[in-house]
């Protein structure tokens, strides 16, 4: 770029309001957490600096290892199902007309339901005695009980997440598909391209940007999932569906171990940041 461009430092004034609001909304709370994570708070005005001790303690905690392991499996499974399924749904949505509007509204419904209501819906839906899903499965002779059996609990939480969030991927993909100009399809027809080739060489590359957003959103959200499993299974049976955020809540609110909880919060944050960084670079256009 041109090196002769005049630099006007006064432009920083335009950025100032944003910096102030970000400071109050993110930086200051974050620094509070940093502060907690290196001190042992004994009471008001009574705190001891402990350095890296909380970090060492938390990183050796087998409960954390279990939660992280479950979290990684859950997030991977959710992505592997939701992204392809969302794309497939988007390809199947009608292009225009009242059918398209109807499908879009129906598809968007799970996204409009408060998260704890989603948990409650599935909690009742999956009950063996009165829930439609649980009752039908039981009547079909399938031994299904999500409150007792860890596998059933896992499957239920996963299916609930797929039901809740696949529409987001589908809506984003649908928007990207509608933005592809008609001549691309026409040229492909003239070139004799198969349906698969059209998807592989036109639709998928044009969806790349939107899919990056969808993937990052789903990684972040699924990594922070709390409300729905909390309502549905409470993290059980045992710790079968206890994910990272629930582990954190138990530490901070349940046991009131603010130091270790703060230390873990920062580790948690860094894990998500790292994951998103890696995925973003993976999805970025290789140019």
């Amino acid at each position: 770029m041109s090196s002769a461009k005049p630099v006007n430092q006064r432009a920083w004034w335009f950025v100032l309001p944003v910096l102030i609001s970000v400071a109050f909304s993110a930086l200051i709370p974050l620094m509070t957490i940093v502060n907690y994570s290196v001190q042992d708070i004994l009471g008001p005005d009574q705190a001891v600096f402990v350095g890296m001790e909380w970090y060492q303690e938390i990183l050796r905690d087998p409960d954390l290892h279990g939660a992280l392991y479950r979290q990684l499996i859950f997030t991977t499974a959710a992505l592997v199902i939701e992204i392809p399924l969302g794309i497939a749904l988007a390809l199947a949505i009608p292009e225009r007309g009242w059918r398209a509007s109807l499908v879009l509204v129906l598809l968007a419904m799970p996204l409009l339901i408060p998260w704890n209501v989603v948990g409650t819906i599935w909690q009742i839906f999956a009950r063996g005695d009165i829930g439609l899903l649980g009752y039908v499965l039981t009547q079909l002779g399938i031994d299904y009980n999500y409150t007792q059996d860890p596998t059933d609990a896992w499957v239920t939480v996963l299916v609930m997440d797929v039901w809740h969030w696949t529409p987001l991927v589908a809506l984003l993909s649908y928007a990207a598909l509608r933005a592809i100009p008609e001549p691309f399809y026409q040229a492909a027809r003239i070139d004799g391209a198969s349906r698969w080739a059209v998807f592989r060489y036109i639709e998928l590359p044009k969806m790349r940007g939107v899919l990056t957003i969808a993937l990052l959103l789903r990684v972040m959200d699924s990594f922070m999932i709390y409300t729905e499993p909390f309502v549905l299974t409470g993290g059980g049976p045992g710790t079968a569906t206890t994910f990272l955020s629930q582990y954190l809540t138990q530490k901070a609110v349940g046991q009131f171990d603010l130091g270790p909880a703060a230390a873990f919060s920062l580790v948690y944050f860094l894990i998500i940041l790292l994951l998103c960084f890696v995925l973003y670079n993976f999805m970025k256009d290789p140019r």
Partner: protein
Amino acid sequence: MARIDLEDVGHRYTGATDAWALRPMTTTWTDGGEYALLGPSGCGKTTLLNIISGLIAPTRGKVSFDGRDVTALAPEARNIAQVFQFPVVYDTMTVFDNLAFPLRNRGWSNAQLRQRVEEVADILELRADLGRRARALSADQKQKISLGRGLVRPDVAAVLFDEPLTVIDPHLKWLLRRKLKQIHQQLKLSLLYVTHDQTEALTFADQVVVMSQGEIVQVGTPEQLFETPAHRFVGHFIGSPGMNFLACEWTGGAATIASVRVETSSTQVPPADARLAIGVRPEYLELAATPGPNRVPVRIAAIQDQGIHTMVRLEVGASSAWAKLRAGSGTPAPGSAFACLPPRRCALYAGDRRVP
């Protein structure tokens, strides 16, 4: 390469009986011809093009290539290449893979297609870029790739262009257009070139097809379109400014404007009750101070000196007209004057059509 015949081909996008996007027409495009389809947006030229390439199935009529009925054939079975307004390239592929794509879809092996792709790349001067990613190229190079994907097929019957220079930089437009002409001469392909730009159409093609409201109103050489527009629309659309149409009457076996008898090149008697006008190009109007044969009284409303020309706005009875006078032919003064209508350059128009 093929002759393309359209027999009573018409198209409606919706079911309404009166909304012809393309009115039923019968026309022939000769083998190896170079045609420009010229008309304003929405006149049906893209519809016509898409019917020929098979992207649209016409509501009625028959399309044939060299006498073979292809109306029911899909685009990929028609041996047509089409280049669109915006460059279409497969972003993730290299230039080579882009050019090879239509051949691979037809089951060619890599060994078979390599030579063919390289030949086409040579014609289009893309040889050096074959290994590059297609999306990294500029718009004019992308348009060449679009064209190349059509040319690479050995059986191409015709190449259709749908305003291919819209997104090309002005200084490259000229080069690319010349390249297209060269390719046409080299490969003897039939070319159909859609545009709304009269300069582009007139410089590109031997035969210009002017369309308006879903109809072909005239097919002719650029000279024919300029000198003898068959339709008022052609008169307006070709030329800058367009043709003047001066309302006239038919009295005593001749056209008259303000009781002055005006001789025209039309020899037939116009139908009674038709709306009559005399069409004359601004370039052929001259001004005089005194009355005489074929001189019509006018009022000079405005004068614009444009350097090489002087544009004079005239009021002729209820009509108004432009006269484009060469510089040095004397600056007229505002007020009353007489417009000289050269008989061989004037024609009588009844309704919208020229009276032969």
